[in-house]
């Protein structure tokens, strides 16, 4: 990873060229910066401060108490469970899908890419509704499921399914361009050197995509924990059983328990902040990896 310094060094050089011809006058510059800062303050910093100040409005004691409430703990647990199932599954699905889309050419490839993007383009509420229509009592598979005493809608499985569906594209989307840029030669070299498919994957392919993969996982996790729409439709809002954290916040808020609502919300906000921090680091490494891959394949094409 030595050429990184080289690649990274190029970008600021071109960015810094704000010459007299393309630059703005001092006043315009300050106005633009002012507008940006104002909007950031209004839409990001203000809400964040309010979340935390409201959460602690009645003191730290109330804050901790509302987090230790059994319903709150159940909601946190359920959120962790849903993310804990959805993220690993989407990690595996995502890698597999990206692998086959990034490394092979076949008929229907663009259709498959479109399908992977589907959860992005469909409203989460609609995706939740699809599950109700499929697995609900009046749904397509409802009678069969109830005969076998299986409950999916208004139960944990439904929440997990909805979460998986909504967060499906993150990992795959992140990896496809990376794998495309890398080509297949290193894998072929590993095979010719006697490595098994597993060794090739874990020793050659995976290290080459690890930052992109991690980035996808972080985004996937953030969305899995924060998902509201789809989960709201399938959950049924049974306190202590089918409420995830976002749903729990909504219920508390509707019951005028503002401090408790904001206490739980502050956890989600903290998660968002952590994600953001980790994301920034990982994103930087991931972009470097992609730039390196692109540089490698460019070098190949120069010939």
């Amino acid at each position, binding site marked *: *990873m*030595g050429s990184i310094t080289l690649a990274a060094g190029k970008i600021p050089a071109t960015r810094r060229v704000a010459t007299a011809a393309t630059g703005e006058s001092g006043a315009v510059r300050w106005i633009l910066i002012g507008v940006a800062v104002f909007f950031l303050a209004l839409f990001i910093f203000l809400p964040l401060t309010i979340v935390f100040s409201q959460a602690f409005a009645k003191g730290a004691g109330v804050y901790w108490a509302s987090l230790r409430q059994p319903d709150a703990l159940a909601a946190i647990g359920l959120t962790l469970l849903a993310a804990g199932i959805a993220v690993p599954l989407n990690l595996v699905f995502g890698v597999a899908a990206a692998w086959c889309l990034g490394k092979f050419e076949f008929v229907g490839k663009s259709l498959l890419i479109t399908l992977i993007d589907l959860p992005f383009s469909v409203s989460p509420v609609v995706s939740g509704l699809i599950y109700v229509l499929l697995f609900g009592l009046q749904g397509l598979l409802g009678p069969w499921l109830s005969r076998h005493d299986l409950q999916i809608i208004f139960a944990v499985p439904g929440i997990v399914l909805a979460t998986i569906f909504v967060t499906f594209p993150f990992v795959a989307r992140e990896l496809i361009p990376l794998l495309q840029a890398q080509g297949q*030669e290193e894998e072929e*070299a590993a095979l010719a*050197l*006697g490595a098994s498919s597993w060794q090739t994957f874990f*020793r050659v392919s995976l290290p080459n995509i690890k930052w992109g993969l991690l980035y996808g996982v972080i985004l996937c996790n953030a969305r899995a924990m924060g998902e509201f729409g789809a989960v709201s439709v399938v959950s049924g809002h049974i306190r202590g059983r089918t409420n995830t954290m976002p749903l729990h916040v909504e219920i508390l808020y509707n019951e005028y328990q503002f401090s408790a609502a904001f206490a739980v919300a502050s956890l989600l906000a903290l998660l968002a902040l952590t994600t953001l921090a980790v994301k920034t680091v990982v994103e930087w490494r991931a972009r470097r990896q992609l730039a390196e891959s692109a540089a490698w394949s460019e070098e190949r094409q*120069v010939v």
Partner: protein
Amino acid sequence: MSIEAKDITKKFGQFAALDHVDLNIPSGELVALLGPSGSGKTTLLRIIAGLEFADSGTILFDGQDTTHRNARDRRVGFVFQHYALFRHMTVFENIAFGLKVRPRNVRPSKEQIYAKVHELLSLIQLKNLSGRYPSQLSGGQRQRVALARALAVEPNVLLLDEPFGSLDAKVRLELRRWLRQLHDEVHITSVFVTHDQEEALEVSDRVAVMNDGHIEQVGSPDDVYHHPITPFVYNFLGNVNLFHGRVDEETPAIHNAATGNLVYVRPHLLEIQRHPNGGSNFRAVIKHINSAGPLVKIQALSEWGAPVQVELSQERFRELQLLKEETVFIIPKELKVFHKKAI
């Protein structure tokens, strides 16, 4: 280990990359697959390696059928045109890879791996760069690491796909001499693909000239250069003048006869004289002279208006004192005739 490809056919969609190809590679030889791009040479190499599988035909290693074995089981060393080094591993780790991935019961110990890698590092003269990453190496260094990595597993055969294709001219020349030297030391059966005839003729024991999914001719460099059996081979291996000639039994003469046979003459096998010799000469006007280099390259226009290239030694050129726009007589010293039917 000898390699035998029998009746290999490979199609990509409608396009036949290889069309019933046969090739024998005796043990210990260094063979070049030479041909223009799209002639099927890389496909043939990849089929020998087991990275690609033929639609029909068989591959034999030492007489053993390996047609359906994959690259992993064939124990081939494969060197890619673009190196395909593992970018997240150092030079040392790259070379050690093939040894480290062996099943535990046949894997060498750490010390053995270390010794082997360092032996190879000194062979490729990169001992002080073992901790570098591929991106910190020059093209020539990368290719040598790729070669060492392939040799580390002590392969039965060494296969190289345009090994010097991505290098600049000088490094290329150096590296191909080094490869020849290496082969003389290691004596591993090797096949390398190239589109550069000079490279093929200089490095290999035998050359297989490929065109359009066929093998046109297999022979020693001397053989294919001096006794080409098809017009394609003659054409591909060096510069050539093409004439339509009438051939008499004893002295083939070049005329502007469209119905005649095809007559090929290499530029250095044409002689220039001031006076007619009464035989197979023809008149030409000198249009351009390039005397920079070991040979003087002269472009002339024949009496029937076709461009002719002649190469003279510097001595002969000084002797003749040729000038532009001068009319001279050109005599073929040796020519190669292909009957029209054969083409």
